């Protein structure tokens, strides 16, 4: 089943083309790994697919089906967590409602930090909260920019567990990661020139 279609996407910063005529299709129950050197436009492409940036030409179409509530969820370099709000407030007072986030905090050992301000958390803990926020949004397609960058081994294992569960439900994942040993079976690779 087709979840997202991108046709002839182009985007440039100050007339310097970053993404040129890029097309792709995202199918359900698949992981897409976006590869490329620093500055090759991976983050820009993810932001185009997520709908944060408007392409200069081309279009992105995302679809939605049960049991999901939203077509796309995105975690980028900026995690979307306000430093003056606590972990629980950042999740409960979000734009969209979340599915049982407090129970999930235990799975990442953050239940003791649920009332702590995000400003007091470590970078890895913030990353986990942002990922957890994305997971509990029940979106069909997860788009993640360097989700493994600040996670410890346990965190990585937790994320892969969540990804596998998401794929079983019929979702899909697009991510960038500089880790070379990408040992997951069935990962589709996209290369940015």
């Amino acid at each position, binding site marked *: 089943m087709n979840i997202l279609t991108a046709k002839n996407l182009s985007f440039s910063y100050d007339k310097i083309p970053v993404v040129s005529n890029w097309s792709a299709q995202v199918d359900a129950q698949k992981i897409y790994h976006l590869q490329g050197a620093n500055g090759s436009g991976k983050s820009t492409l993810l932001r185009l697919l997520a709908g944060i940036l408007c392409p200069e030409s081309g279009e992105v179409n995302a679809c939605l089906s049960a049991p999901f509530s*939203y077509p*796309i*969820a995105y975690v980028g370099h900026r995690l979307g967590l306000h430093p003056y709000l606590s972990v629980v407030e950042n999740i409960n007072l979000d734009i969209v409602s979340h599915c049982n986030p407090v129970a999930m905090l235990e799975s990442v050992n953050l239940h003791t930090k649920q009332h702590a301000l995000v400003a007091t958390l470590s970078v890895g803990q913030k990353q986990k909260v942002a990922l957890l926020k994305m997971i509990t949004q029940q979106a069909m397609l997860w788009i993640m920019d360097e989700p493994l960058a600040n996670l410890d081994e346990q965190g990585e294992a937790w994320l892969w567990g969540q990804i596998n569960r998401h794929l079983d439900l019929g979702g899909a994942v697009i991510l960038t990661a500089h880790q070379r040993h990408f040992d997951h079976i069935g990962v589709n690779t996209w290369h940015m020139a």
Partner: protein
Amino acid sequence: MAHGLVYRQLLREKQIIFRQKHAILQPFLFFLMFIAFFPLILPFNLQLLHAVCGGVVWMSLTIALFLAAERFYLEDSQCGYLEQWLIYKVPVYSYVLCKWLVHGVVQVVGVLFCMPIIAVMYQLNFLETYSLLASILCGMPALLAMCGLVSAFGPNRSILMLLILFPLIIPILMLGSGAFASSALSAYLALLLALSIGMVFILSIASAAILKISLENT
């Protein structure tokens, strides 16, 4: 969903603003100091105090609101929260309006707190105090909307935009200070209210568009 979103957004803004006490105290203290010190540097003349009262209060309120609005959207923009609004295709103006509403309520409470001090310092009677308060309540949304628009340009461009947009603030200041102790108070208040409704409506959409454009350039 919209009802839940507005409720969550208002609660979120309230939590943030009360955690950043300097954001409330700084403009409030500025307003208080301005209105309290001004009569002290003037010769004691009741007529002169009455003549300048409306202008002084409105001018200090304008600057205090600009001080409060300086970092309106900065943290939400830097932390990536605003990006999420674009992903879920929720109108950004609803975020802007919720922010203005919470900040407006906080500022109004501050002004109410200062009214007895203003009344004593400028020797105002009940009717004069009432006309001043009513004009502030009717005109403050327009001022806040203007401050919000300037703030949407970001801290690097806000001073320049303030200079460019300053002529738009002058009618609010003229009507606001003119309403004080005027015999045609209701006409002034009606004009201020109309200006506030129009500016909040138009400038919330304009601010949302500017925020969206600035997100695309970061």
